[in-house]
């Protein structure tokens, strides 16, 4: 059990970059970007192909970053300049990337087992592996936090918060959207590259449903530590990603659940997390309105009684 929890934590950290990417689009830009399903595999494809061709794993991971940035920029361009609906722009890129990824790999999957990867020298012992990953992920998180507090970062955040305002203050919201979606997919692709190096292979279907896992991580994290500041929100996303993996590890140990039920479980987590607050709010609003109406009606009735 303990080993599977350690494994879950390590996996959660590797997936955390993907979740941070989803956080940028879904929460900051308010742009539901589905490109991630494609760009995650793009990252894996580029990294594994470059490694099999003898490039250094660092360079291969950097290449994955580049691929993700480009994929995201394409979606951003489609949405802002081509005026394509955001969801559709993401879906189009996701489908296009499926073919592109197979082209990159030359076949549906590429193995890097027994090759030197970014992660192979540090994988054992697992405690140290987790420590190194944690430091690396936190470093990237802090860089992202810093970026989101620069002038450009503020404009990016305002684009999702009040685009009309930031336009009137002189920021081109098309540009900020493209930068944001691009950055998001860059992170997602790096995550894909790391996952492929951890697992020892990349596969054309490795990104299927990744967006929902990202959403689940963001939502779980926010529910537990909240979103008061950017610093806390990004920390929440990382924690959410780890917790999600731990939940999955437990779910897999339930005897009557199959591994293939995982996506259903993930979707259920996201659905509950999305619907519950809405239902709660509506219910609260209604009971508050009823209470206030009763109070006010009571006051008028009393007033009338006094007069007669």
């Amino acid at each position: 059990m303990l080993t599977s929890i350690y494994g879950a934590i390590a996996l959660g950290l590797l997936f955390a970059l993907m979740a941070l990417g989803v956080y940028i689009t879904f929460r900051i830009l308010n742009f539901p970007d589905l490109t991630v399903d494609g760009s995650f595999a793009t990252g894996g494809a580029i990294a594994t192909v470059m490694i099999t061709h003898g490039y250094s794993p660092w360079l291969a991971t950097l290449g994955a970053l580049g691929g993700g940035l480009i994929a995201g920029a394409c979606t951003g361009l489609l949405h802002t300049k081509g005026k394509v609906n955001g969801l559709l722009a993401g879906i189009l890129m996701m489908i296009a990337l499926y073919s592109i990824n197979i082209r990159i790999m030359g076949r549906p999957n590429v193995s890097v087992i027994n090759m030197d990867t970014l992660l192979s020298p540090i994988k054992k012992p697992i405690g140290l592996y987790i420590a190194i990953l944690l430091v690396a992920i936190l470093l990237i998180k802090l860089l992202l936090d810093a970026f989101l507090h620069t002038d450009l970062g503020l404009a990016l955040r305002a684009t999702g918060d009040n685009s009309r305002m930031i336009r009137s203050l002189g920021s081109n919201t098309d540009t900020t959207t493209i930068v944001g979606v691009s950055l998001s997919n860059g992170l997602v692709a790096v995550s894909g590259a790391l996952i492929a190096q951890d697992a020892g292979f990349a596969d054309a279907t490795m990104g299927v449903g990744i967006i929902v896992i990202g959403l689940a991580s963001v939502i779980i994290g926010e529910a537990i530590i909240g979103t008061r500041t950017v610093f806390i929100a990004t920390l929440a996303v990382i924690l959410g990603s780890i917790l999600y993996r731990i939940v999955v590890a437990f779910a897999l140990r339930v005897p009557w659940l199959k591994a293939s039920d995982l996506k259903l479980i993930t979707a259920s987590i996201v659905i509950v997390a999305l619907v519950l607050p809405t239902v709660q709010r509506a219910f609260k609003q209604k009971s508050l309105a009823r209470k206030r109406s009763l109070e006010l009606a009571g006051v008028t009735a009393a007033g009338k009684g006094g007069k007669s």
Partner: protein
Amino acid sequence: MLELVKVSKLFNPGTPDEKVALMSINLKFNPGDFVTVIGSNGAGKSTLMNIISGVMNPDMGEVLMEGHEIQQLPEHRRSRWVGRVFQDPMAGTAPRMSIEENLAMAYMRGKKRGLGWGVNAAKRVLFREQLQRLGIGLENRLNAKVGLLSGGERQALSLLMATFTKPQILLLDEHTAALDPARAELITRLTEEIVSELKLTTLMVTHNMEQAIRLGNRLVMMDKGRIILDIPEERKRSLTVSQLLGEFERISGHQLSDDRIVLG
């Protein structure tokens, strides 16, 4: 200075819903002018503001800023000249960001946004100083999310954000209309103070006739996309609300009809 030359704008051209929003508008601002605008519903007041700020481009005519034609520039490239406060207190600020972050974005109005810190110690001092002028205690809440502020507080912050970089022209789009009387009075007073202190050239749309007469040095009356009267300072000083309404009826041939009009 800002000048509009024969500016025209049609909505839905060539359809049964075709509407003249602006027809051959000429309007020249002198430095330091504070122009109030009144007019019926659909007179083109908001379109006029949108044409100046670049939300819309005119179909014909020129918008000149210090002699340069800017009518084809998009909104974000005109922002360095134009400060604007909207009617909706929610429109001028970003609710999920803090007061100081909102001010930091306004501070960069029209400048290239790079990777420098949005808020630093020096800027924070400046922001606190500026917020103090509003006199509503926002200087002690720099890190509060703007979404937590009341409508009046948000509008005061919007006003500060629109003005503290001294834009060439300040557009006030019925910016007190959505507030309760006490808050509206506060925002009106702050507007007067800030405009006169920074000597801002200002264009203010209002439904409040008394306010239109009391504020500013020029009053412009619009009807059906045209400017039908431009009252200079000397005449404006002795003007009354009933004279103003009578004047409108005489020129336009109909009553000033506006579902939100306030006589003052």
